[in-house]
């Protein structure tokens, strides 16, 4: 019902709506039905009240304020009106004003830019004051504390933070801290590290709970990994001006080392040696290939005869064995028993005879003991020798240095002409390896991940 009425009203209010009765206009039809509205509800205050007049008045007031800076009725007469007397004064003012302007202006007066004009405030109403900008939270409290501080400062009492500031020492940023603290600083300080008594930081339980307890070094680490001494003095033949015999001794040792190397090489060569007489000649090759193929007739006959005999024999062997008879079984049993009896008797007699063999038994036992003792001694000696050897600690085996020897014609007569042999650096490095402090190491090789391909330049290809 309401929807139908709304529809009619909408239709009527359309422009160009024609009524059947010419006297009745659409407005009559619309306005005749007025809806009853409750104006006391807040919802309807805005909808159904007409404040246009008030709005007009207020708009007028605002306009006046914007353009003239206040209500016109309140302004004084002088500000609104002036007495028009004539023009010549204005011309003089204009002439006075002109020479003030710069010479650059020829005909055009300097006008402000349009953009500046646009951006200016064009209303004479002052912008409202931002009260919050002037508000200070706790302004009163702060003022009071400042006054109190002033009073105390006047008396000489300084607050704690200021006191700490004054006590702070200046941090020396100019000195290079890292260089002085570095471990290899040549000017570094040493102190008595063994003389100081250990600082008792606290009870062990406390230290353990607060994780400040220092971990004890395992006892095994204090043992030296090798029995060799740190510095091995060279043999007396290594002196720069050696005694004849000790020098010969040293030369002999070096000679033996070389001999060993040569032996190994010779052995290898012998193993790889190839006897030319062993090469297969054409004749032997032919014979091998032709084996069994040539001279078939004679050989076949020879082979046939022995084959037949073999077959007969084989046929005979395949014949089934007869079953064992009772007699045979009994016989076998009796034999077994006899054997066993014989064995036991033998054992008994042996035991009895051993009484008379005591001496020889004793000697054999003694011999065995001696051999075991000798073996034990040998093993112990081997172990001791092994201790002095460098252990195998990694991929590479320990390679001892070449002996430092100077041949008889290289020996210098005086200290000035001495040419040192071997380097102490290498010696120390090898000594560290020998004493099992580090594993033997080799210089790292340069390995390529990708293969290098060699290509001839075109020019060279033509030549070669």
């Amino acid at each position, binding site marked *: 019902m309401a929807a139908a009425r709304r529809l009619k009203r909408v239709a009527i209010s359309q422009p160009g709506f024609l009524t059947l009765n010419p006297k009745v206009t659409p407005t009559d039809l619309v306005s005749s039905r007025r809806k009853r509205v409750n104006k006391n509800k807040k919802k309807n205050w805005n909808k159904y009240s007409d404040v246009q007049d008030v709005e007009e008045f207020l708009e007028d007031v605002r306009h006046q304020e914007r353009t003239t800076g206040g209500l016109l009725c309140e302004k004084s007469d002088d500000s609104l009106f002036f007495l028009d007397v004539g023009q010549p004064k204005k011309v003089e003012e204009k002439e006075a004003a002109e020479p003030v302007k710069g010479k650059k202006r020829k005909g055009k007066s300097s006008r402000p830019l349009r953009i500046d004009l646009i951006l200016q405030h064009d209303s004479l109403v002052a912008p409202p004051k931002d009260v919050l900008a002037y508000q200070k939270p706790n302004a009163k409290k702060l003022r009071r504390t400042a006054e109190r501080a002033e009073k105390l400062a006047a008396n000489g009492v300084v607050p704690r933070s200021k006191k700490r500031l004054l006590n702070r020492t200046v941090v020396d940023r100019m000195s290079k*801290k*890292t260089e002085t*603290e*570095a*471990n*290899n*600083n*040549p000017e570094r300080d*040493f*102190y*008595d*590290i*063994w003389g100081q008594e250990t600082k008792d930081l606290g009870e062990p339980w406390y230290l353990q709970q607060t994780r400040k307890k220092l*971990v004890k*070094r*395992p006892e*095994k*680490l204090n043992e030296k*990994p090798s029995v060799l*001494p*740190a*510095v091995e*003095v*060279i043999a*007396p033949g*290594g*002196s*720069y*001006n*050696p005694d*004849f*015999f*000790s020098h010969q001794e040293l030369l002999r040792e070096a000679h033996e080392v070389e001999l060993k190397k040569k032996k190994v090489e010779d052995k290898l060569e012998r193993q790889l040696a190839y006897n030319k007489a062993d090469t297969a000649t054409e004749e032997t090759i032919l014979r091998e290939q032709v084996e069994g193929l040539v001279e078939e007739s004679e050989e076949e006959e020879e082979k046939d005869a022995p084959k037949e005999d073999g077959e007969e024999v084989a046929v005979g062997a395949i014949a089934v064995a007869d079953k064992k008879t009772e007699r045979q079984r009994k016989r076998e049993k009796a034999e077994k028993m006899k054997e066993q009896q014989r064995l036991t008797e033998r054992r008994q007699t042996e035991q009895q005879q051993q009484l008379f063999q005591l001496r020889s038994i004793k000697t054999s036992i003694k011999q065995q003991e001696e051999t075991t003792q000798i073996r034990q001694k040998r093993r112990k000696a081997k172990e001791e020798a092994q201790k002095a050897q460098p*252990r*195998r*600690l*990694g*991929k590479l085996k320990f390679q001892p240095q070449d002996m*430092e020897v*100077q041949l008889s014609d290289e020996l210098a*007569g*005086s*200290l*000035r002409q*001495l*040419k*040192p*042999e*071997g*380097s*102490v*650096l*290498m*010696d*120390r*490095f090898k000594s*560290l390896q020998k004493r*099992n402090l*580090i594993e033997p190491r080799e*210089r790292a090789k340069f390995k390529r991940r990708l293969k290098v391909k060699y290509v001839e330049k075109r020019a060279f290809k033509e030549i070669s």
Partner: protein
Amino acid sequence: MGGLQKKKFERGSATNYITRNRARKKLQLSLPDFRRLCILKGIYPHEPKHKKKVNKGSTAPRTFYLLKDIRFLLHEPIVGKFREYKIFVRKLKKAYGKTEWSAVERLRENKPTYKLDHIIKERYPTFIDALRDIDDALCMCFLFSTFARTGKCHVQTIQLCRRLTVEWMNYVIASRSLRKVFLSIKGIYYQAEVMGQLITWVVPYQFSHDHPVDVDYRVMATFTELYTTLLGFVSFRLYSSLNLVYPPKVSWTKLSALSASLARVVSSADEEEAQLDQFPSEGEDMEKMEAREKELKQQEAQKKLFEGLKFYLNREVPRESLAFVIRCFGGQVSWDKSVCIGSTYDVTDETITHQIIDRPSVGKQYYIQPQWLYDCVNAKILLPVEDYFLGVTLPPHLSPFVEEKEGDYVPPEKLKMMALQRGEKPGNEQEEDEEEEEEEGEQEEEEEQEEDDNGDEEDDEEESLHVKVTPGKLKVENKARLEQEEKAEEKRLAIMMMKKKEKYLYDKIMFGKKRKVREANKLAAKRKAHDDSEKEKKKKARK
């Protein structure tokens, strides 16, 4: 199967060891860092007895560490420093790459560093432990101080090594503890006795250096890092034991020239060494005590070997080594100003007693070759200077580190030296040699004539002499000799009474014992032949 079965490689030695890569991953360090850490903390790889068990069946060569050691490493604060350093390097590279120089400076100023003091205290809880390991440290420090100052290793390390070695040498001079010196073809070996410990170290010659390529410099540098710290602390302690100020307040030039006497903490007037009361220790007889006293006296005498002598070193001799040796035994030394700073007196000084020269000939009397000094030190007495003049072939430089047992071959030079030490003058032998040389020039006829003359004289005397009864002279029978003779006779009797078998064994043993003596005799004969041939050569040369 049931869950409580024992599986292989879960117990025992297989779980006690850990491979190097596993250890590295456990510590979260790179391989060079891991190596450095192991070297610094003194953790070495172990070779297990049964490799197959530990390696879980394979025999591939791997480096094994004890698991307990690696667990101990986890608590080390230096590990954190290594990681910080890695990050520092990364940041620095980035800053360089972006060319942010202010960042580079800032990072460089705050570079992470670490100190090794706590490690030294942990590894060497007492001072004597540290002294025992000081051999190695000294060798490394001396070696590094001779390196050239290129960028291969930190220049600071080289400087620190130089400073420490100079301080050590000054300590040895001040305490007069040098005992043996040996010049070898590799370098110079020194041995000193410090607080009862015998310390041996090698010093390379100054004038040769071909750096071998196979040596891992990083490893050596890490060892040196540790050893410089150790040596510094030990030096401090040693200096304070002598009441000397450490670091020495003498100027560096004087210190490095080894010509300064170190300042003492408490300036004491010349202390008279109080004679200690002699109490025999447990189990010692009077004989041993006397022997000990004798040794101490000898040592005291040795310490003042060069006292009162003034030496001048020429330019071609190894200055530092000689200055060190001379000053260790109380002598004064100087050298040419152009060689090094710190020379005290000039060539023209008249109070110079010996001048050390290595050139072929200058002509004057008291010029000696440097080997004299070293041989004197080893012999513990002042040897006659004549053997070491210019142009003379030097006697061989024997090694003081060889201790000859009875029956071994002893070179005649050593015999001479021992004779000198005992106080006999071998000068007679020399004179005899000279006389022999002169006499050989004469012909045999003259000698025969002399003998005849002597014989005639004797005959004459006898004829003139009348037979007189003169009081008899007492033949002093040496009791000791008699006893020895008796014993020898008894031995001979016993040998005669032995059975055949036993005699055979005895002969074998004696043969073995006498072998050494026979060899020594052989060598002596050889030497004599050699000497004779040389003399003949000399004669021929003269003619």
